[in-house]
C-alpha cells in the first residue's frame, strides 16, 4: 500500500487475525475431510478405533484406500456359494472387490437414478423459477403495479411457513391431481418455494440497471418487449446467474418435501443416501461415498463462483 492510512490494521494485527481465521477454517473443514476419507475406506477401517487417517500407510493409523464404498454405492450385490464363485471368475475390477465378501454384483443400485432425479428436478425448477422470476421482477421494478409492496411482502412471507405445514395440503392436492411422486410435481413445488427469493433478488439487480437504457431503446423504435430482452436481460445476466445458483442449491439440498412427497419414481438423492444399508447395519463407506459425490458439485460451484454467491447471500438478506 502506497498511502499511509491510520485505519489500516498493523501487520501484527493482520497476522494474528489471519492465524485465528485459518485455524477456524481448518477445524470447520475437518468433518468434510473425514467424510471424504471414509469414502475410500473398507467397512472395517471405517469403524476402527483409534481412527485411521493416513492414506496408504501400514502403521496403526494408516489404511489402504479402496473403492469398495463407491462400488457398494452404485451396485446391488448378493451372496453366492463357493462353488459358484469358483466357477465364475470375476468379470471386472469392481466384481473383484466384492468377491472378498463371497458376493457378486447383480446390478446397479438406485443411487444413479436418484442422482439423476436430483439433476432433473434441480435444473427444471431452477430454470422455471429464474424464468418466471425475471419476468415478475422486471414488472415490479419498472411498472406501477397496484399494491406492489404488499404483493412483494406476501411473496416473501410464504417462506415463513414450515415445510411440513405446507406439505400436508400439498400432499392431499398432489394425491388428487396425480402429481405425487412425479418430476413435474416436484419441479412445480420447488419453483413455488424458490420464486419468492428469485423475484426479490432479481428485482434488486434490475433496479440497478438505469432506466435510460430502455428508454433510449424505446425511442429507437423497439417495443417494450424487445427492449426487455435485448437491453435489460443482457445487463442483468450476472444477477440472473447468481440467482439461478441459489435456486439450484436449494432444490439440490431440499429434503423435507422430497421425503414426504416422493417414494420411488421421483425421489431425489438426499432422502436416499441415509438409507444405504450394508452387512450388519449402515454401510458407512458407501454413505460417505454418496455424500462426497452429492456435495462435491456444490462445493466446487461455491469456490468457483464465490464472488457472486457471497454477494448474493448478503445482498439478498440485507435488502429484506
Amino acid at each position, binding site marked *: 500500500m502506497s498511502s499511509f492510512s491510520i485505519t489500516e490494521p498493523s501487520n501484527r494485527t493482520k497476522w494474528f487475525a489471519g492465524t485465528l*481465521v485459518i485455524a477456524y477454517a481448518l477445524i470447520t473443514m475437518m468433518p468434510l475431510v473425514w467424510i471424504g476419507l471414509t469414502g475410500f475406506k473398507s467397512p472395517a477401517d471405517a469403524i476402527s478405533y483409534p481412527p485411521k487417517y493416513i492414506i496408504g500407510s501400514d502403521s496403526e493409523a494408516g489404511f489402504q484406500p479402496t473403492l469398495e464404498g463407491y462400488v457398494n454405492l452404485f451396485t446391488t450385490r448378493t451372496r453366492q456359494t463357493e462353488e459358484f464363485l469358483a466357477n465364475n471368475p470375476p468379470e471386472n475390477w469392481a466384481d473383484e472387490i466384492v468377491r472378498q465378501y463371497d458376493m457378486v454384483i447383480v446390478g446397479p443400485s438406485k443411487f444413479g437414478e436418484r442422482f439423476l432425479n436430483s439433476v432433473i428436478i434441480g435444473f427444471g425448477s431452477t430454470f422455471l423459477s429464474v424464468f418466471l422470476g425475471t*419476468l415478475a421482477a422486471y414488472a415490479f421494478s419498472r411498472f406501477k403495479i397496484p399494491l406492489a409492496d404488499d404483493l412483494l411482502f406476501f411473496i416473501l412471507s410464504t417462506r*415463513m411457513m414450515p415445510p411440513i405445514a405446507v*406439505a400436508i395440503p400439498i400432499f*392431499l392436492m398432489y394425491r388428487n391431481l396425480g402429481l405425487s411422486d412425479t418430476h413435474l410435481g416436484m419441479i412445480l413445488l420447488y419453483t*413455488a418455494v424458490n420464486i419468492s427469493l428469485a423475484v426479490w433478488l432479481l428485482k434488486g439487480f434490475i433496479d440497478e440497471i438505469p432506466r435510460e437504457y430502455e428508454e433510449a431503446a424505446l425511442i429507437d423504435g423497439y417495443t417494450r418487449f424487445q427492449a426487455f430482452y435485448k437491453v435489460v436481460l443482457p445487463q442483468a445476466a450476472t444477477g440472473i446467474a447468481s440467482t439461478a445458483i441459489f435456486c439450484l442449491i436449494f432444490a439440490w439440498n431440499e429434503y423435507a418435501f422430497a421425503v414426504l412427497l416422493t417414494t420411488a419414481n421421483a425421489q431425489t438423492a438426499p432422502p436416499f443416501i441415509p438409507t444405504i444399508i450394508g452387512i450388519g447395519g449402515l454401510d458407512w463407506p458407501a454413505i*460417505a461415498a454418496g455424500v462426497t459425490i452429492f456435495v462435491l458439485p456444490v462445493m466446487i460451484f461455491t469456490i468457483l463462483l464465490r464472488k457472486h454467491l457471497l454477494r448474493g447471500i*448478503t445482498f439478498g438478506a*440485507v435488502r429484506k
Partner: protein
Amino acid sequence: MSDKTADRVAAATPTHIARKVRGLSDRAIAWIFVAPTIFLLLAINIFPLIWTIRLSFTNYKANRINREPEWIGFRNYERILTDSDIWLNMQATAHFLFWTIFFQVLIGFTLAWLINKKFKGNDLWTTIIVLPMMLSPAVVGNFWKFLYQPQIGLFNYIIAFFTGKDPSSFEMLGSVDLAPWSIVIVDTWMWTPFVMLICLAGLRSIPDYIYEAAEIDRASKLRQFFTIMIPMVLPFLMLAVLFRGIENFKMFDLVVQLTGGGPGSTTELTSINLKREAFEKWRTGYASAYAIILFVTVFGLASIYVKALNKVKER
C-alpha cells in the same frame, strides 16, 4: 437510419402511439409478466394455506379416504394448547433456537471482525468457512451422525483426546443430557458462516472516514469498538438473527437425520412433532391446526422483531 419509408414513418410517430401500434401496452406487459408468478404462488402456497385452515376445524384423517370428515370447531386448537407434551416440544425448540443463535452470533461476529482486518488471502479462507452452509442439511445431519458415534466417531475421539475421557463413556446422540447440545453444535457448525457474512457486510459498510475522525479525536480502540462498530453493525446483526430464527424455528431435515427427535422426545422440535402427527399418526385435521398455530407464532414473533429492528435502524 435507413431510408425505407416504413422506417421514416416509424421514426416520425410519437412514441406513445407507436408503442400502442407495435406492441402491447405497458400495463398489459406488467400483468403478463407478473401473472404466472402470482398464479403459481396462489396454487402452491395460498390455496394450500386456506385448505389447511379449513382442515384444522375437522377430524379428517388422510389415510382414510372414504370416511367423511366431521366439523369439530375449535377442538383441535383446544387440545393442542392444553397438551403438556407440546409445551415440551416448544421448550426443546426454544433451547435449540436460543443457543444456536447465541453461538452463531458470538462466533460469526468474531470471525467477521477478524476477517475485516484484511489479512492476505482473507477471501479464500472466507470461502472455505462458508462451505458448510451450502450443503444439504439432511446430508449434513446424516454424516454428523457418523462423527457422533460413540467409540468409533471422530467427534468422540477428539473430545476424548483432549479431555482424557474414555470415548465410549459418552453418547452425544443417545444421552438425554447431551442430545440437545449435539444438534446445537451441528447447526452452529453449519450456519455460523451465514451470520459471519452478514456481519462482514455490515462491517464493510462503515466508511473509513468515521474511524479516521475518531482517531483524530483520540478515541481509544475500545471506545471506537463500542461507539462506532457495534451500533453500526447492529442492524445487520439483528437481520442475521431474524433469518436464523425463522429458519431454525422451521428446522426439520438436519435434526430428523441426526437424532430423529430422540432419545425419547428430548430433541423433538415442533416441526418433527408436526411431521409425526401428520404423516405417521395421520391426524391430518389435528396436524393442520398445529401447523396454523406454528405459522401464526413465527409470523407474530417476526413482525414484533421487525418493528424493533426498524427502530434500531432509525437511530
